[in-house]
C-alpha cells in the first residue's frame, strides 16, 4: 500500500495542476496515471487558453461571454471564480516557462476565438495543449512529486453509507500495467480525479483512445452524481477519416467554411450573420450538418475549410502544425487546397458534480478537469475555456485537498441538492445488470479503519481481475464498438426521441454482453486486453448517462438539440440534469441553475451570433 496525503488520479493538465497546488500547500502528493503524464490528451489541445489579460478586457466580460456561451446553464459562482482566477493562472504558466506566442514587444499574444467579445485567447503556436502539458509536467519534475505512471486506477475506496453525502473516500486501487501488481493508494487527505474526457463513447471523436471516462464512471458508481451529461460538444472542424481536430485557431485567424457550391454558408444561409465562422461550436456544427443533409456537402459527408488566403507566411507562423495534421492524417496540403472537415465528438461539458473547490459530495473525493462539472460550461463550452478550467479548478482542488484556505463554496452538491425528481420514459432499465450491490463501494459499515477499507477494496479488485483473466468470453472490442456506433448514430448533433431510445436499448444489450466478457490475454505483463476490458465498462456507463440525459432534456439548448423541441425553454429547463447511481438503479433528478454571481446577476438572453 502506498501512502500519501493527496492522491491525484490522472496526470493531464488538471491532474498536474492539482498536484503542484497540493504540493505547494505542503502536502505529500502522488500522481497516479494510466499513461505517462506527457501522453495525456491535454497535449492534443491546439487553439489556446482564454484569460482576460489586456487592460481593456475584464474578467467580468470573460464571465459574461462564458455564461452566454453556456446558454445560461452555467453556474455563476463557478464562472466568476473561473474568470477571475484565469489571468493569474496564465501568468503563472508563463512564469513556469510556457513558450507562448509573442508580440513584437515580447508580451504574450492573444487572438480572437469563437464566442469571445475580446481577443483573449493566449496560445503557443497551434500546439498550446502540448506546451501546457509539458510545462506543467516539467514543474512536477522540478518539485520531485511522485509519479506512478502506467498505473490504472480501477476502484475507489469509499465507505458504503446509504446517503452518498455521508460517504468518505480513503484512497484508490491501482493496477500496475507493467507488472500486473494490484495495490492500494491510501490518501490521508483526499483523492482527486482528473481523468479527462469520455470521447470514446462515440466512434468519431477528437479524443484519444485512452479517453474512456474512467473517472466519471468511478465517481458515479461510488455515489457522486453525474451532471448535465447530455451536453456533448461536437467540434465543427475535424478531419473526416480520423477525427483529428483542426483547431478553431484556423477560423480565429480568418479561415472560411465553404459548401459544395463554394458558398460561404455561415452567412449565405444565415446561420450566424454576425460572427460567421466564429460563431459558437454548436452553431457551426449544426450548420455544417444541415448543409450536408440538404445536399450541399462535399461527397455527402463534409464541408471545406479554407485558409489559403491567409498567406503562407502567416500560416507557417501561427498554424504550422495544422498543415502537418492535414497532410499526415488526410493527405491534404492546406497551403494548396481547402481542408475537408466535419463535426466530431470533442468535449464533455457534463461530468462529476463538484463545487468551486473541486469537492464532490463524497468527503475526500475531488474531481477536476474535463471529467468534472463545476458547471462553468453549462450546455456549451467556448473554445479555449477548457485549458484555463484545468488550471483554475485543478489548482483549487489541489489546494483544498491539501488543506489550503479557500472561500466556502456556493454550489451545493449531492442528491440532497435536488430541486425536482426526474421523470423519463426509458425503453429498458438503465443501470447495472444483475449485480446490484456495485462493487465500487466497499461493503459492510462494520469495516473498522480506513486502511482496512482500502485493503478490502484491493482484495475485491484482485478477485475481479482474477476472474476476468481466468475465464474466456466475449471480447471487449465487440461491446465497445456496439456502444460507439449506436451513440454516433443516435445521440449525435441531431437528436430525436426514438433514436435516443434505440441507443438506450443497444447500450442495455451491450451491458448484458459485458456480463460475459472475458480476457483472452492471460499474461500479467502489460495486459492491455485487460485494461481495455475494464475501460469498456466505463464507456458503457458514460454512454448510458449521456443518452439518459439527452432523453430527459426536452428542449434545445446549447449543444443539445432535440428534434421535438426546437426551443430553449427557460421557464422549465433552467436546471441541471443530475444522475446518481443509486446502487445500480440510476436516479434522475434536477438541480437549479445559479445565475446570481459574485458581482453580477446574469439574465438569460437569446444567444445569437
Amino acid at each position, binding site marked *: 500500500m502506498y501512502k500519501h496525503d493527496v492522491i491525484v488520479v490522472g496526470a493531464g493538465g488538471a491532474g498536474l495542476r492539482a498536484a503542484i497546488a497540493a504540493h505547494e500547500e505542503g502536502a505529500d502528493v502522488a500522481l497516479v496515471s494510466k499513461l505517462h503524464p506527457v501522453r495525456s490528451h491535454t497535449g492534443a489541445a491546439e487553439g489556446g487558453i482564454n484569460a482576460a489579460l489586456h487592460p481593456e478586457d475584464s474578467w467580468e466580460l470573460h464571465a459574461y461571454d462564458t455564461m452566454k456561451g453556456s446558454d445560461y446553464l452555467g453556474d455563476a459562482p463557478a464562472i466568476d471564480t473561473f474568470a477571475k482566477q484565469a489571468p493569474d493562472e496564465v501568468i503563472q504558466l508563463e512564469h513556469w516557462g510556457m513558450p507562448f506566442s509573442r508580440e513584437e514587444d515580447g508580451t504574450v499574444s492573444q487572438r480572437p476565438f469563437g464566442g469571445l467579445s475580446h481577443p483573449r485567447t493566449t496560445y503557443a503556436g497551434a500546439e498550446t495543449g502540448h506546451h501546457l502539458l509539458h510545462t506543467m509536467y516539467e514543474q512536477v519534475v522540478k518539485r520531485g512529486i511522485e509519479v506512478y505512471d502506467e498505473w490504472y486506477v480501477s476502484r475507489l475506496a469509499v465507505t458504503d453509507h446509504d446517503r452518498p453525502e455521508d460517504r468518505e473516500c480513503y484512497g484508490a486501487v491501482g493496477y500496475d500495467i*507493467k*507488472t*500486473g*501488481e494490484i495495490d492500494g493508494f491510501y490518501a490521508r487527505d483526499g483523492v482527486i480525479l482528473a481523468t479527462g474526457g469520455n470521447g470514446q463513447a462515440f466512434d468519431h471523436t477528437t479524443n484519444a483512445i485512452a479517453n474512456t471516462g474512467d473517472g466519471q464512471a468511478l465517481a458515479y458508481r461510488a455515489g457522486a452524481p453525474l451532471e448535465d451529461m447530455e451536453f456533448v460538444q461536437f467540434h465543427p472542424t475535424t478531419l473526416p477519416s480520423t477525427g483529428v481536430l483542426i483547431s478553431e485557431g484556423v477560423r480565429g485567424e480568418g479561415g472560411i467554411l465553404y459548401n459544395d457550391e463554394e458558398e460561404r454558408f455561415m452567412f449565405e444561409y444565415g446561420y450566424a450573420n454576425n460572427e460567421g465562422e466564429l460563431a459558437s461550436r454548436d452553431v457551426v456544427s449544426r450548420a455544417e450538418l444541415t448543409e450536408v443533409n440538404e445536399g450541399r456537402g462535399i461527397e455527402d459527408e463534409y464541408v471545406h475549410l479554407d485558409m489559403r488566403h491567409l498567406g503562407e507566411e502567416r500560416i507557417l507562423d501561427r498554424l504550422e502544425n495544422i498543415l502537418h495534421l492535414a497532410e499526415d492524417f488526410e493527405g491534404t496540403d492546406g497551403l494548396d487546397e481547402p481542408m475537408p472537415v466535419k463535426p466530431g465528438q470533442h468535449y464533455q461539458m457534463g461530468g462529476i458534480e463538484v463545487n468551486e473547490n473541486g469537492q464532490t459530495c463524497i468527503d475526500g473525493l475531488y474531481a477536476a478537469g474535463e471529467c468534472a462539472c463545476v458547471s462553468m460550461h453549462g450546455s456549451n463550452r467556448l473554445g479555449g475555456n477548457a485549458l484555463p478550467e484545468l488550471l483554475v479548478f485543478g489548482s483549487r482542488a489541489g489546494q483544498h485537498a491539501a488543506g489550503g484556505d479557500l472561500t466556502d463554496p456556493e454550489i451545493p452538491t449531492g442528491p440532497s441538492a435536488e430541486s425536482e425528481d426526474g421523470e423519463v420514459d426509458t425503453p429498458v432499465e438503465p443501470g447495472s445488470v444483475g449485480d446490484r450491490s456495485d462493487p465500487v463501494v466497499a461493503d459492510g459499515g462494520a469495516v473498522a479503519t480506513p486502511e482496512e477499507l482500502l485493503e478490502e477494496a484491493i482484495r475485491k479488485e484482485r478477485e475481479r481481475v482474477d476472474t476476468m483473466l481466468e475465464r474466456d468470453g466475449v471480447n471487449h472490442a465487440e461491446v465497445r464498438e456496439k456502444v460507439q456506433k449506436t451513440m454516433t448514430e443516435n445521440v449525435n448533433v441531431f437528436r430525436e426521441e426514438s433514436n435516443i431510445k434505440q441507443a438506450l436499448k443497444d447500450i442495455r444489450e451491450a451491458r448484458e454482453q459485458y456480463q460475459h466478457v472475458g480476457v483472452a490475454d492471460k499474461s*500479467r*505483463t502489460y495486459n492491455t486486453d485487460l485494461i481495455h476490458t475494464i475501460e469498456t465498462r466505463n464507456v458503457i456507463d458514460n454512454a448510458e448517462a449521456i443518452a439518459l440525459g439527452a432523453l430527459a432534456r426536452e428542449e434545445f439548448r446549447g449543444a443539445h438539440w432535440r428534434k421535438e423541441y426546437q426551443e430553449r425553454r427557460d421557464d422549465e429547463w433552467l436546471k441541471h440534469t443530475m444522475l446518481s447511481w443509486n446502487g445500480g438503479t440510476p436516479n434522475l433528478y434536477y438541480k437549479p441553475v445559479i445565475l446570481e454571481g459574485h458581482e453580477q446577476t446574469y439574465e438569460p438572453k437569446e444567444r445569437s451570433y
Partner: protein
Amino acid sequence: MSQSYDRGTVESFGRWLEFKPGMWAWILHKLTGWILVGYLFTHIAVLSTATGVDPAAAAAGNDIYTTTLQSLEELLIVRFLEIGLLTVAVFHILNGIRLLFVDLGLGLDRQDVSFYVSLIMTALITLASLPTFLGGVL
C-alpha cells in the same frame, strides 16, 4: 514477473541496410582515421632508417634510407597500398571538412548530399591519380 527481453545492439549492427548516410559517414570516417593513425606509426618507423644514414653513403645515393624507400616503391603491392592510403586520406579529409561544416552548424539539412559528394570526389581523385602512382612499376 516483469522480465524483459534485451535484443542487444548486435542485432541492429547486423542490419547494414537500415543504416543511414550519416551513420555510414561516421563509420567510414572512423575507419579511415584509424588507418591513418596506423599508417602514421608505420610511416615514422620506415622513415627511421634516416637516422642511421652515414653521409658518405648518402652522397653515393645508396644509403639505407634511399634504398629502403626505393626498394619498397618497386613493389607493386606497395603502390596499391599507397593508392589505398590516398583514397583513405582523401575521404578522411573531405568528410572531415564536411564534419567541420556540421560543427559550425552549416548546411546541416544537406548532410547526406555532402557525404555522397565526399564519396564521389574521393573516387574521382583516386582514379585521376592512378597514373602518377603506378608510374614506373607497370
